[in-house]
């Protein structure tokens, strides 16, 4: 257990060096907040244009919350699988991790922790910007903050383990895995209704949406932060049921992710893909 924790810590430290040591702290902070700030302002201006200036509209608040927390999905989900690709293809260090007396999975989870940390900078900044500058009413009493933290962590467990599952795919797939991961990020952004109500999706897409843990996660977060439901098709589901569904889908993601990754790792080792060089 101690060895596992040390590996996670080492993975997180290496991840931090890879992510952050190319720039001074100010530039790195600008990098971390640029994306969430830009997408927030894009949505703000779109809503402002359509509503003729009534930017305090509830619609924007809901878009804002969904878009802000979805940053965790893009950063952590893609970040974990990207770590496999970069370590294997760019830095060519993956093989050295395998010859060290550590397991790769805790190392990968450590890399995921770094991404959670860097994404959190963007999320916290965006929430503060939304609350202070754009006037989004963000409830911040102790109970709300505790619920927000709990649901965020629960969702992050699911995001991280889905990232582990994608990292498994990256182990057995050549350079194309990057497109797959980034494409999946886009598909999730579209299907879980991060920035629009699920009701505008066609019926077949709504059915897929209801299978995704992020759909329930974002709906719960919206209800906690704004106190109001958003998605029409989830209006009949109370908060407790949403939490239960989120917990169940998260547990399924963890178990599925663990076994899937183990299978991919075995396959990659058996086929000699650990030091594969498929990039150019």
């Amino acid at each position: 257990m101690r060895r596992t924790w040390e590996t996670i810590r080492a993975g997180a430290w290496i991840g931090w060096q890879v992510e952050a040591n190319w720039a001074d702290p100010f530039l790195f902070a600008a990098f971390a907040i640029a994306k969430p700030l830009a997408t927030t302002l894009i949505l703000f201006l779109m809503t402002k244009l359509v509503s003729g200036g009534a930017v305090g509209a509830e619609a924007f608040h809901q878009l804002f919350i969904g878009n802000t927390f979805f940053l965790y999905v893009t950063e952590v989900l893609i970040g974990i699988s990207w770590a496999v690709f970069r370590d294997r293809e760019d830095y060519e260090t993956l093989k050295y991790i395998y010859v060290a007396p550590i397991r790769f999975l805790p190392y990968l989870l450590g890399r995921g922790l770094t991404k959670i940390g860097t994404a959190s900078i963007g999320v916290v900044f965006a929430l503060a910007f939304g609350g202070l500058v754009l006037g989004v009413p963000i409830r911040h009493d102790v109970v709300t903050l505790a619920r927000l933290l709990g649901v965020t962590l629960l969702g992050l467990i699911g995001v991280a383990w889905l990232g582990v599952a994608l990292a498994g795919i990256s182990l057995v797939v050549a350079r194309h895995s990057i497109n797959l991961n980034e494409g999946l990020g886009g598909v999730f952004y579209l299907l879980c209704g991060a920035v629009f109500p699920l009701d505008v999706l066609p019926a077949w897409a709504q059915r897929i949406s209801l299978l995704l843990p992020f759909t329930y996660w974002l709906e719960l977060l919206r209800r906690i932060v704004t106190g109001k439901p958003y998605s029409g098709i989830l209006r009949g589901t109370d908060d407790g049921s949403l939490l239960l569904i989120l917990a169940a889908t998260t547990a399924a993601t963890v178990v599925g992710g663990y076994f899937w990754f183990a299978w991919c790792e075995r396959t990659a080792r058996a086929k000699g893909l650990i030091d594969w060089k498929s990039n150019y």
Partner: protein
Amino acid sequence: MSGDRQDFGERVRMNLGAVTARASVRIVAAFRERSWLLGETLFPILSMATFVLVYRGLGAPRAFESFAVLGGAMIAYWNNVLWSMASQFFWEKEQGQLQLYLITPVSRMSILLGMALGGMLATTTRAIVILLAGIFLFHVPFPWERAPGALGLFLLTLGALYGLGMILSSVFFLWGREAWNTVTLFQEPVYLLSGFYFPVSALGTVAASVAGFIPITLGLDGIRQILFGEAAKGFIPVVWIVPIQAALLILYLLLAHRALLVMENLGKREGRLTIRGG
């Protein structure tokens, strides 16, 4: 005198050859790697679809959905400029090929021009697919009869945009790992500043004017005005946009030529042109 003329002719022939060669590599590469083809088309479609649905969710007029589709198509060019033009010398350095470019007796501008022309052609196939996906999958309105009028401004915009890409490539000449992060930094903020998904006039006069230095900003604004008239909520009249874009094209080409010389010399002095994994 005759020797000078022959020398000049030889240089022109060699540089034209470099343009053609670099453009052909770009076009062939763009279609050979199928996963890139998919990624460069699918990601902008997903993104464009999301913003179309945002407008639909907000109950916006249909023309706004068309703005998002046009912006989605233009994003393909901006991403091409960033990833395959501006940062190209960084990739070449990583692969150990930059020095091969530098020892050839051709102008760096010819290499970049070939890269730009090849990139434009290859990206146009992606942009067309994105545009058609918006029109046929989401049934957004598109006034085809006004498209020829918008084409001239579109081509002028592309020229100025790739001129900016040439300037950026000179900066990326020297950068190492930070190039990757800087390119990422130029994505979403420019989506905001250039009004890819909304009329840029919404930014306000000062911000939109500054954003006008990115050629896509005014180009997209003008194209939307030509296609959708008043509904486009234009920032400045189209008759002003055309000369501004032409001026940007000339200015950026001149600046790119100068910047390339300066950065190459600086790189040689600091010994950073051949450093990998920096």
